[in-house]
């Protein structure tokens, strides 16, 4: 029995992944203070490492076609340990969702409406997310096709407009920072964007050709990764030494666009694009959290959980983060370590255990 009846095409999966990775342009801010003007190198490194990690996830999905992550865990670790691991992941999706909700609230508060209570922003945002999640993965995937283009085009156009302001000497000297910092920064970027494609293990079963997930996911990651690199290059070349200091390099860089006194103050478009992307990311995590819980509790449909999970994530966001400084500290120093467990250790272990137990064959006979 499948909870989700919607079917997505591999093109839609490509754009979904693309949106998902592109959305990291804003959270990338957390890597700038560590790797400074070499952040673009960290993004490229993270893209490569992330693609390798994604291969693990995909091979895991290919072992069990048509099964989502919770079902895979059940098959690999048995009903009890599997449930335990799945519930960890559900909680992890929920926490990530609340982190994104807080991030969007913080973003809107910093740049658009500083006096508005954050809970209000988060409720409004969570409301549209819940709406989309209720409509199912099909609607989210279809929307992502449109949403992927808008920010990409904005990144390209703003980069072209900022060419005049860019100073390419800002990249020099290459690799000034110690290699340790670069690794740390790469790890942060991997953690906030690329390795999060793990969540697609909940979505791959909805793909119409289930064994063909590899190409769209990898292509999506790489294409969006390149857009991230372009965005990072734009920010560093434009802002130079300011880029590690400002709260959001993308916004500040685009603020400097001034073409003939008319094309100016364009940061609103960056903000709009980022809201669209963060919306897609939040929807995916929201959907994954809801679907995994519904799958574990063997519900017939996940719809009734949507509102509950939404409220839960808002409450969680409000109680777990107090300030921007705390969020950035935890993203820079705490969560990357914890996430290793989820993004690297467990999936690798699952893959190895599955190979050892020769699970797919058994599954095929049954």
């Amino acid at each position: 029995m499948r909870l989700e009846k919607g079917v997505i095409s591999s093109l839609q999966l490509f754009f979904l992944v693309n949106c998902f990775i592109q959305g990291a342009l804003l959270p990338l801010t957390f890597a700038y203070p560590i790797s400074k003007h070499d952040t673009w190198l960290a993004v490229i490194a993270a893209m490569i490492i992330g693609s390798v990690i994604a291969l693990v996830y995909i091979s895991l999905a290919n072992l069990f076609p048509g099964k989502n992550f919770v079902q895979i865990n059940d098959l690999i670790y048995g009903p009890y340990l599997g449930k335990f691991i799945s519930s960890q992941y559900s909680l992890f999706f929920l926490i990530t969702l609340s982190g994104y909700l807080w991030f969007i609230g913080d973003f809107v508060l910093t740049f658009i409406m500083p006096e508005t209570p954050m809970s209000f922003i988060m409720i409004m945002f969570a409301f549209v997310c819940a709406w989309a999640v209720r409509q199912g993965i099909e609607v989210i995937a279809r929307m992502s096709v449109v949403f992927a283009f808008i920010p990409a085009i904005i990144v390209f156009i703003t980069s072209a407009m900022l060419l005049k302001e860019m100073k390419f000497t800002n990249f020099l000297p290459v690799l000034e920072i110690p290699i340790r910092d670069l690794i740390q920064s790469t790890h942060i970027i991997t953690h906030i964007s690329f390795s999060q494609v793990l969540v697609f293990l909940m979505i791959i079963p909805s793909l119409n050709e289930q064994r063909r997930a590899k190409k769209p996911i990898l292509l999506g990651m790489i294409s969006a990764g390149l857009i991230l690199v372009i965005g990072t290059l734009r920010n560093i070349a434009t802002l130079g030494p300011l880029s590690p200091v400002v709260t959001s390099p993308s916004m500040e860089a685009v603020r400097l666009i001034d073409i003939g006194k008319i094309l100016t103050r364009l940061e609103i478009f960056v903000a709009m694009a980022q809201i669209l992307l963060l919306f897609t990311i939040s929807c995916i995590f929201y959907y994954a959290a809801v679907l995994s819980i519904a799958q574990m509790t063997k519900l017939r449909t996940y719809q009734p959980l949507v509102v509950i999970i939404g409220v839960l994530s808002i409450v969680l966001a409000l109680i777990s983060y107090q300030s921007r400084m705390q969020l950035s500290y935890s993203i820079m120093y705490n969560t990357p370590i914890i996430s290793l467990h989820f993004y690297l250790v467990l999936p690798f272990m699952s893959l190895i255990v599955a190979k050892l137990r020769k699970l797919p064959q058994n599954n095929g006979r049954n």
Partner: protein
Amino acid sequence: MLSYLLSRLKYLKLLGQNYKLSQSNSTASKDKDEKSTTSYLSASLKNNLNLFKESLGNNYDVVIREFTINMPKQVDGALIYLTGMTDSKIVNDSILKPLMFESQLDKTTLTSKLDTIEMIRTTMLSVGEVSKSNSINDLVDNCMAGTSILLVDGCTEALLIMTADWKARSVDEPKTESVVRGSREGFIENLLTNTTLLRRKIKNPDLVLESMKIGQRTKTNVCIAYIKGLANPSLIDEIKRRLNNIHTDSILESGYIEQFIEDAPFSIFATVGNTEKPDSVAAKILEGRAAIFVDGTPFVLTVPLLLVENFQTSEDYYSRPYFVSFIRLIRFMAYLISILAPATYVALTTFHQELIPTPLLFSMASAQEGVPFPAIAEAIGMGVIFEILREAGVRLPRPVGQAVSIVGALVIGQSAVTAGLIGAPMVIVVALTAVASFVVPAQTDSGGVLRIVFVALAGFSGGFGIMIGLIGLFIHLTSLRSFGTPFLSPIAPLSVADLKDTFIRAPLWAMITRPSFIGSQDPKRKDFRLKPSPPSEKESQSE
């Protein structure tokens, strides 16, 4: 709004309570219906006439003409028809005259074994469409639709002679969709004329016109038109299923049908299209859609409807592609302006003043100086006033309508600004919005609702609110379906091939395939290599 919903809820509760009761009732009434239809004609003309008089009542437009049929053996007969709905020329010249004076029967036919009524049908009536029936109900229904009924003494069957004809408007230019280039014909209120107009465009036996009657009391003729082999059979089945589910007493306009069969009754977007122009119906049918004709209205429904269809006109395909593509983009822009301009203005002036270029801010600030209302009140107020003016202009006779627009423009526009009640920029924004909203006539209604929603969102939370509203709108549009076809279809889900006729209009010779979500039965529309080229080039190639 809320009270309406509550009352609806109460009504539904009532329905729920009476569900069983109504269920048994309906079956009972169905039984009763069937019983009444079981009354048939008898052999006696007198009895039959009495039956008819009973069921037709004392209607003044019913004519019962008793006469003697001039056959070798004289037989009594009666002709029953409605005066206003029949062509008196046919009745007089093709029915009464041959029957009474010009019997062509000779001995041989007389000796044949045909009964009287069949003899009359085959040899005496010079009318195209004649059928037989013995059920009183059937006869009465047909009579009501303009058919003449010929009763013959001694026969248990009556002849139904097609004489329906009534005064109808002549085919003229549609008022709602005027064009510069293209056919000037528009549908009229007569179903037969309308289907004929379509048939004249598509002279193909595959064009199927299936008819049915909907409405227990009005018995309105409804006709589904599609092309066999092009329209998806499941689409036709779905349309028939939905139409058959309409159990209502009256269908007065195609709008009735539309509201009973649409996919998303709560949506502000219509998922059933309508048009007055035979050429656009033909074009849509040729793409694999189906049309629903309803007797008594010039508006023909087409399903499935996509959002982009609202931005297309029949003229787009008659003009050359460059300008049309430009105009298409203008239409999309105008629609966006019509729903977003006041909201953007409100958001900019109350939340994001930093986004206004400095010189513009100067003039806006000085225009707004001393205006007593907040921008959101101005926007909503002006929007409502505009809708009032528009409604007044639409309903009033034309000369008075002009007076209204003058009063509206002068008093509200000019004086309010000079009196300092409203800032001049707001008047400009509202005027721009109003003009833009007429660019896409099919979406004027949805635009009006969305405009208010967006202004409210912008007034409460600025650009973020607009963004949330846009995302919500997009979620809604993406989840909508019209008869199984995604409403936003060439865009989301993306179909690159169909974008040729979405934001731009590719040259006709390049539009080889039908829209993939609609015309998948027979995707190829025309040959490749239809692109015109100068003859000399071809000759030189062949030589």
